[in-house]
């Protein structure tokens, strides 16, 4: 049943999640690490957990990464 797993996935929370404020504060550092192929998730697991769960911050991260990689040019 797809609905059960989708609801369960939505309700799951990760205690490592640092929240939007901290993720937004460090997003430029995290994006550069990812763009450089460095181990951003291992260095900042709380930010990685947050970006997986927070749609708006995840969207900002994708946009910043695209800009850093030149995708916005």
């Amino acid at each position: 049943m797809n609905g059960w797993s989708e609801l369960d996935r939505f309700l799951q929370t990760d205690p490592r999640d640092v929240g939007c404020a901290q993720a937004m504060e460090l997003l430029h550092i995290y994006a550069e690490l990812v763009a450089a192929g460095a181990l951003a998730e291992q260095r900042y697991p709380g930010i990685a957990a947050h970006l997986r769960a927070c749609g708006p911050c995840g969207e900002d991260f994708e946009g910043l990464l695209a800009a850093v990689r030149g995708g916005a040019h």
Partner: protein
Amino acid sequence: MVPANRTVHETPVTAARLDAESAEWLQTLAETCPQRDAALARLHEMLVRIARGEVARRGPRLRITGPELDDLAYQAAADALLAITGKIGQFRGESRFTTWAYKFVIFEVSAKIGRHFWRHPSVPLDAEDWDRLPDRFGFDPAQEAEWRDLLAALRRAVEEELTPRQRVVFVAIVLHDVPLDALVAELASSRNAIYKMLFDARRKLRVALAANGYLGNDTSRRS
């Protein structure tokens, strides 16, 4: 979720040596620099380019098109320029200056898209359309007998376990698909505060459903 006022045990931020390009930006944007106006114009041009790229990237998922989208990009660039010049003393060189600057314009694009949502609101915030819940999570109508009790339990938990504010946030985002940034604008709040309310609501609801045997007992996800 790690409370905002608690130290996170991750790699600490350390001051880094500036790359040449970042150092030049800082030098030319200094208030005493004769080239400051030219540097501001160059920075603005760069921010407009990034903002236009970002609205184009998000465009297909938005209810904004054409000149309005371009106008939004220009406004985001102008506001980001103000934010950057106001906070330039906070740049610590942990990334390139341009990456730090891009972040501001990306955030401005998000905030403006959030505010734009309420120009054509599709739902009043105080409505509670619970009939949308099955579709929201992809429950198959043909199998209603199997999920009816689960969703009834979820609704009870929303009514009994959540605070009034958590309930408003849950209903707006989950039942009415209001974007989180749009709710931030409507409630004059912050993204962090709304996310925290939804985070706490999700945790409470999962505990309630697990206690009644509807979901498994693992309370954290380690993916």
